[in-house]
């Protein structure tokens, strides 16, 4: 396995960001990466995306915040985070020397917040990319999520792009009628790549107590349950845009990654699977290397968009 890993060409590029392989970890599911050091050789991963950061610290939602569902889970963490200043002074310090590209996921309640946080991160060392979470509700526009309205999505993208020196990935919400419309809008807004999907909005009820299982009532559905929806959306978006597409949703293994890449993804993110198997990301890299060697591919890039239609 060792020699396969070093010899197989797994490199992919997301705009100007060159990754040694297409396997990233998804925001909010890998902490600030150090948590996984007992299990994963972090330098073997393509990139890590850290937990979403806002301008001000957020305590997040009250408990319970997570509940398991059939082949999936709902979360309503409420974007708990230390805020951008402590992120820079504490978390980024601990990420020094981590030897894997770090992508910072950002979020805001207003266009200005997005812009401001991007600016604040612009001159911080060690950040290889920004991922913009546009699933958050726009407090100024009555709580409609940025990610559900094309021109709002485009505006957030442009604002972040303007203020950033690193590639900007926009993370799309699946809770829309036509995700290609949003993808095209953020491409026009200047996004270097799109990642999809964020969680599907869901809910769970305990019939005994007659109460919602999450204190926040609704939450985000992730895990294998949503993989078919994610794969469909990646397939649709990959045909609609010409920037790289990063596939997210229910990915657990190298086989899953192959499916997303065949559908058109240039890279992928592993989310909930990290909880089930903390070594999932590194094992997926090994699996891809094995596949490239076994199939005698020149590079993993050969399979991107290689779906054969009936």
């Amino acid at each position, binding site marked *: 396995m060792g020699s396969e890993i070093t010899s197989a060409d797994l490199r992919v590029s997301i705009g100007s960001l060159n990754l040694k392989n297409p396997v990233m970890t998804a925001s909010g599911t890998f902490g600030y990466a150090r948590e996984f050091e007992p299990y994963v050789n972090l330098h073997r991963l393509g990139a890590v995306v850290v937990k979403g950061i806002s301008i001000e610290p957020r*305590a997040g939602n009250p408990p319970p915040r997570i509940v398991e569902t059939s082949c999936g889970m709902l*979360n309503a963490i409420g974007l708990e985070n230390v805020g951008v200043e402590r992120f820079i002074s504490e978390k980024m310090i601990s990420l020094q020397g981590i030897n894997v590209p770090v992508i910072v996921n950002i979020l805001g309640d207003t266009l200005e917040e997005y812009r401001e946080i991007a600016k604040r991160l612009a001159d911080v060392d060690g950040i290889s990319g920004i991922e913009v979470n546009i699933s958050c509700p726009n407090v100024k526009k009555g709580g409609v999520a940025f990610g559900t309205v094309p021109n709002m999505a485009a505006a957030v993208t442009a604002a972040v792009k303007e203020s950033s020196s690193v590639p900007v990935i926009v993370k799309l919400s699946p809770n829309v009628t036509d995700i290609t419309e949003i993808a095209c809008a953020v491409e026009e807004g200047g996004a270097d790549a799109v990642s999809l999907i964020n969680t599907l909005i869901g809910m769970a009820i305990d019939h005994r107590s007659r109460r919602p299982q999450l204190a926040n009532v609704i939450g985000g559905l992730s895990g294998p349950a949503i993989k078919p929806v994610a794969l469909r959306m990646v397939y649709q978006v990959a045909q609609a845009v010409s920037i790289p597409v990063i596939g997210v949703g229910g990915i657990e293994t190298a086989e899953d990654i192959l499916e997303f890449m065949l559908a058109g993804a240039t890279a992928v993110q592993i989310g909930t699977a990290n909880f089930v198997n903390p070594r999932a990301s590194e094992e997926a890299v090994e699996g891809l290397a094995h596949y490239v060697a076994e199939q005698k591919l020149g590079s993993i890039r050969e399979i991107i968009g290689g779906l054969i239609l009936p």
Partner: protein
Amino acid sequence: MSQFQEKTQITRIERLTENIVRITLDSPDIASIAKPGQFVMIRTGNGKDPLLRRPFSISQTSNSQHFQILFKVVGRGTSLLAHSREGEYLSVLGPLGNGFRINCKSRNCLVGGGMGIAPLLFLAKTMLRKCPNTPPLVVLGARNREELTSLVYDFAELGLSAHTATDDGSLGHHGLVTDVLKNLDLGTNCTSYVCGPHPMMAAVHLFCKDRNYGCQVSMETNMACGMGACLGCIVPVTKGGYGHACTDGPVFDAKELVWEVK
């Protein structure tokens, strides 16, 4: 902090009652470094449903080779676990969390309710080794005699005779463990180590607060990862915001937590 993800072999499965099960796992890595109050996250099956691992306290270690978990069958995950076979392998993450802080200088009192008793056996054993001159008091509560008998026996084997309370009065005091606590001579300097249902822990906390006793509680929350990544396992803390049961806990100083008394 060392943590491992391991395929551990089941060396023994015992049914203590119809739905209380003890599983012994062969895992030198975990057994040799675990501390009382720490827990493990276990995959209950190979499929995707149930998807997430389940948290279980380490209830015993032996010879730095094996450790045990003790659990009640309450849902699909625990039911699958109960149906595993000796010789099979389970995927285990651990040891996780902080564990109890043993204070040899105070009178120590272990208070367990239901399956909360699981970690206290490990704690008792360690205390007897660390503080040989001050054996802890043990107070155990459960629904009925059946649930308690074999656990009481485990403590007896360590030379500790447990005070007991049951909901139905079938063993020991008919009522709550706090009733039992009130009637014990705990002196002026006492620390309680508590694990059990939330209302029980709240009551013991109040009892200790009134008397200026120390009180460490082991909190149960929904957990997806067990290692600080999902931010799901929160408990409200008095200084504002939340603590994370899997990394800041599961054992907290009761005074640092917000106790909603309903």
